[in-house]
């Protein structure tokens, strides 16, 4: 048996990827562009506040119904125009967008966290815990959120954007719970989970080090959808009276535009700009989700490099 160690290994054709410390999956273009898009929305309020008076987002601070500056009738005093309560659209976007995004982010994160915890519990423990969680999430998902929120709104005075995000999260967990549970159930049987166990991994390791990275595509996709969903849901809640109203969020701005027949009046800037920002948030998150896939699934990368 002495020959064994000396025996040359029949080397396969040259590996497809150079092995390089800087070949980090985290440094891919999609991820970075997505992050830039999302961050630019998140930080627009802070940066925007340095060169634009954000108080112009309040009612009656500007002339009403002005079109954007680059359209006849517009003025550079209000580059993106104004709406019918005398709010400056630029200020509205600079204050509303980060707030909308924050609400979406908090709500989706909490929803996802609850989903991860419950989904893992259900998938791992099985038995009656699993059944209980399934029953609860299946029953909860059909109860119209509006009914519950009306009840809640009766008990709260004035709530912050963060509290509103938490309220939205109350309805954002059953989806992720089901998703994570299903994933845990399939992943649980994977060879690498057993191998990890044999390497002395505890349950925490198994969930967070072994399983979670492989669930990233799902989680990221679900997260992207939930952020958008939560932003839209927050508009619904604000219309219903929950949440702060002095300075509108994106959803609320569109809601106001709708109430004032902006579409038929031809005030496209009123709903169009918020649309655009929502689309940027969504696309940014989507790019991040795609980027994360490559992190989570090295096969994707490997093949792309080969091409």
């Amino acid at each position, binding site marked *: 048996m002495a020959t064994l160690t000396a025996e040359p290994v029949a080397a396969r054709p040259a590996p497809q990827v150079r092995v390089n410390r800087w070949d980090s999956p985290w440094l891919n273009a999609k991820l970075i562009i997505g992050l830039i898009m999302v961050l630019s929305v998140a930080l627009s309020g802070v940066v925007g506040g340095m060169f634009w008076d954000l108080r112009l987002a309040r009612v009656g601070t500007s002339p009403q119904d002005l079109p954007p500056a680059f359209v006849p009738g517009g003025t550079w005093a209000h580059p993106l125009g104004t709406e019918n309560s005398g709010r400056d659209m630029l200020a509205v976007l600079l204050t509303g967008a980060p707030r909308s995004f924050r609400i979406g982010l908090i709500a989706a994160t909490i929803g996802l966290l609850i989903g991860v915890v419950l989904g893992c519990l259900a998938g791992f423990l*099985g038995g009656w815990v699993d*059944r209980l969680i*399934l*029953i*609860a999430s*299946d*029953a*909860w*998902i*059909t*109860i*119209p*959120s*509006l*009914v*519950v929120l*009306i*009840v809640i709104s*009766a*008990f709260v005075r004035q709530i912050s954007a963060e509290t509103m995000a938490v309220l939205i999260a109350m309805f954002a967990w*059953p*989806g992720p719970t*089901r*998703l994570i549970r*299903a994933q845990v159930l399939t992943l649980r049987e994977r060879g690498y989970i057993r191998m990890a166990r044999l390497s002395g991994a505890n349950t925490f390791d198994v969930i967070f080090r072994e399983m979670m990275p*492989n669930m990233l*595509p*799902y989680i*990221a*996709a*679900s997260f*992207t*959808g939930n952020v*958008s*969903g939560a*932003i*839209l849901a927050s*508009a619904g809640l604000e219309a219903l009276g929950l949440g702060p109203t002095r300075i509108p969020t994106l*959803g609320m701005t*569109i*809601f106001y*535009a*709708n109430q004032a027949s902006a*579409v*038929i009046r031809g005030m496209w800037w009123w*709903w169009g700009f918020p*649309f655009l920002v*929502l*689309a940027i*948030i*969504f*696309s940014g998150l*989507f790019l991040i*989700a795609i980027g994360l*896939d490559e992190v989570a*699934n090295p*096969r*994707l990368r490997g*093949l792309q490099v080969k091409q």
Partner: protein
Amino acid sequence: MSGMTRGYVVRRFLMWVLTVWLGATLIFAIPRLAPGDPIAAMVLRMSAQGQIIENSAELIQAWRERFGLDGPWYVQYVNWLRNCMTLDFGYSLTQFPARVWEMIWRALPWTIALLTFAVIITFILGNLIGALLGWRKTPPLLRSLLPLTLTFSSIPPFIFGLLLLFIFAYTLDLFPNQGAYDSRNLQPGLTVEFLASALHHAILPAMAIVLTSMGGWALGMRGMMITTDGEDYMILAQAKGLRTPRLFLRYAVRNALLPQLTALALSLGLIVGGSVLIETYFVYPGVGYLLYYSITNGDYTLMQGIVFILILTTATAVLIIDLLYPLIDPRITFQKR
């Protein structure tokens, strides 16, 4: 492979019962947690405008008795569960003497027709886009263009529906702007004219639903595809030299689609609830509007009736899919470890 055992069916059925029961209990409890009294509100509404009624307490009591809301909560609860079992939810609180079931029944067929139509298209399109996005052999051009279709889902449906109306109904005049069929000239029936008119009226609202909601499906499907892609049977199938379209549909899509079916079943309630804006903007008859009306007007009997139907259908759909699952997907078994 005998994935399905009698025990599994029994267990799954028990879960169905518990889910429906829990949903029914929640929907019984939640309105009762709300402050305020729907009956009092109703009595106030009834009084002539600009008038003050002095004996409102007496009227409130009379109505409370009529709706069986005067007993202690457990009596009401038992009555409610019995109503659930017989699907008889009594009178509507605000539309007395209309019966809840009669109101639901009037709206239900349209909801089923429009939503099924739209949801199936959404599901197919969304999953197809998602599948193509998650498929490595998708042409790069297609792959970079497809995500654009997803941005629709970041737009609030209420204004999206309006934009569709604005473009296709008001400006281009291609589609009618309201209703489920031409009710001024046609009688519902199995005639070509009626069906054509119904279809013509359904296209815009269906489009609004499809475009705003397919993004969610696509995102989910994309995730499934990407993981499916790495599975052994995919590698095996590729190794066998199967042609790409066949590989795509039979192996990748098929296996990735299964979890999406459960999600579809679970989202039934959300879809109905979410269709209210469509029903409002396109003046389309349906349960969504009824649900919204019942919630905002405090018509709890109507609301409970609709929500219970939703719970029942959702739970049943999930049950059916769970029972069919092992038959479709042999990888899944229900053996207890």
